[in-house]
């Protein structure tokens, strides 16, 4: 019995240790964001509490001078259009592949399948030239098109889900005189809601956090999304860790709120997304 108790204690110890490792760096950054620049200069140490726990001055600086407002705006535009587009593209592809027999169907499936194996980072050298030739470079269209056009995982999620929708529903609608498009819009799309929720969550978080694509394709300062705008803090705020910290907290906060409210969906979404 004592051996079990010791083992249990060790398990809890490891869990508490892991919690500390995860939360400590974040907590310190949060504390730093509440300190004034004088406090930082006096070198009270990273772990010291801020003198005034309600000092939100750094947030104002980060928000105003760091152009966080336009960054959140740009992110929102890209997010809404790209996620909406992904849902349309993914569900249409899944509908066509699962519900129709047509020539070259196997080939189409193979094209999507192989594309899923190609890591996006490797092809950007050449993708850049294509995006550039469309005149989309340095516009919000570049990330939107790339997020929409290169997301194979969502297609899988839709494909997996559409198979569980009984075909008899399609047929009933067809007997009532509905065409293929009406079936898609009135029967399939409403029944795909759980899959849509999954895609919105997984895709939304990925788009919100992506740095590589906006960094490559939108160098203009007024086209900054939250990742690139936060990255630019490195220059002007150089050693002003209190401002950089405030910027980081501003970026993390929405994620934390979404996570706290949608925990269960998020776990399921990422499990479905990763295992395809």
């Amino acid at each position: 019995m004592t051996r079990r108790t010791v083992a249990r204690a060790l398990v809890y110890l490891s869990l508490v240790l892991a919690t500390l490792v995860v939360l400590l760096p974040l907590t310190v950054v949060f504390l730093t964001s509440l300190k004034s620049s004088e406090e930082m200069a006096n070198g009270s140490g990273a772990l010291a509490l801020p003198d005034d726990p309600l000092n939100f001055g750094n947030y104002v600086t980060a928000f105003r001078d760091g152009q966080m407002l336009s960054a959140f705006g740009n992110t929102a535009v890209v997010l809404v259009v790209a996620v909406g587009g992904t849902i349309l593209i993914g569900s249409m592809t899944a509908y066509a592949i699962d519900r129709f027999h047509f020539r070259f169907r196997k080939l189409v499936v193979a094209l999507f399948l192989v594309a899923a194996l190609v890591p996006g980072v490797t092809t950007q050298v050449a993708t850049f030239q294509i995006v550039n030739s469309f005149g989309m470079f340095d516009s919000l269209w570049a990330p939107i098109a790339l997020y929409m056009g290169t997301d194979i995982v969502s297609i899988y999620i839709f494909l997996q889900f559409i198979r569980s929708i009984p075909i008899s529903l399609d047929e009933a609608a067809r007997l009532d005189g509905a065409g293929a498009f009406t079936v898609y819009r009135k029967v399939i799309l409403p029944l795909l809601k759980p899959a849509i929720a999954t895609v919105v969550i997984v895709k939304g978080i990925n788009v919100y956090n992506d740095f590589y694509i906006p960094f490559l394709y939108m160098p203009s300062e007024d086209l900054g999304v939250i990742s690139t705008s936060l990255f630019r803090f490195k220059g002007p705020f150089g050693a002003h860790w209190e401002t950089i910290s405030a910027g980081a907290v501003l970026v993390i906060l929405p994620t934390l709120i979404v996570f706290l409210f949608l925990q269960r969906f998020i776990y399921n979404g990422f499990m479905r997304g990763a295992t395809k």
Partner: protein
Amino acid sequence: MTDTTRKATRPAPPAAPAGPERAPAPRTARTRRRLTPWLFLIAPLALLLTFTYAPIANMVAYSFTDWDGVSPELNYTGTGNYTELLTRSELFEVFFVSGYYLVASVVQIVLALYFATVLSFNVRFRNFFKGVLFFPYLINGVAIGFVFLYFFQDGGTLDSVLRLLGAETDHAWLGTPFSANTSLAGVSVWRYLGLNFVLFLGAIQSVPGELYEAAEIDGASRWQQFRHIIAPGIRPVLGLSVILSVSGSLSVFEIPYIMTGGATGTETFVIQTVKLAFQFNKTGLASAAAVVLLLIVLAVTWVQRRIVPDEKVDLV
């Protein structure tokens, strides 16, 4: 009518060509029916070809030239770029940096497996621990970069904690290649552990609970339960995690780029490729590098699929 009922029981697409006993549909209707799936596929296929296949084809083509990415002229250089990649040692060194991340991902998988196993049993505050372990995966990469720049800074979080524990150090954590790469790989574990953990946890929990109860009654120890019940249950997810780790270690970009910009020997393959292509305008050479990376990743995927056959692969 028999046709319809048969279709309803077996998932065959409704637009399958009608049997010969049916009166042939009017020509226009038939063409339209044949065209319908393509109407749904036009946009997805166009995007797929434009942003995935065309770049691959172009990339392979560029890799045999000396193109600089802007000027209209380019010369065919044969396999020159590939020889340069393999013979100029500083271009090849970036692969050693991947080694750090590869080791880190082994640590990451082992830790994830441990925490998933522990938390699949009845533990107090289980949801809290689960959330804490997973949350870093959701955080913006740039924010993580800044959090850990401050963490490793001189007199930053790590130094302060060590001083609190009585160890006085003035070690510059990001100062030497070994220390910097180890630190960055550690950040990568911190960031990605959560995904592996949640995947493992999901796999473990999909094992029916009666199995554990039966094992418990038979007197199996925790280790035996892990060895004979949990381990076989998570094999597919483990295979997936391994391949994600390998291709992830080869294509590390965000954390080192944000934190050190590739300085002090922390340059990874992708950072090097991005610099070659967009700073030094060596599109040809960068393309060759990208082709090599792509081939390695595809080879790893292929090997993994051979070792752990995954029945989910045949999607249709």
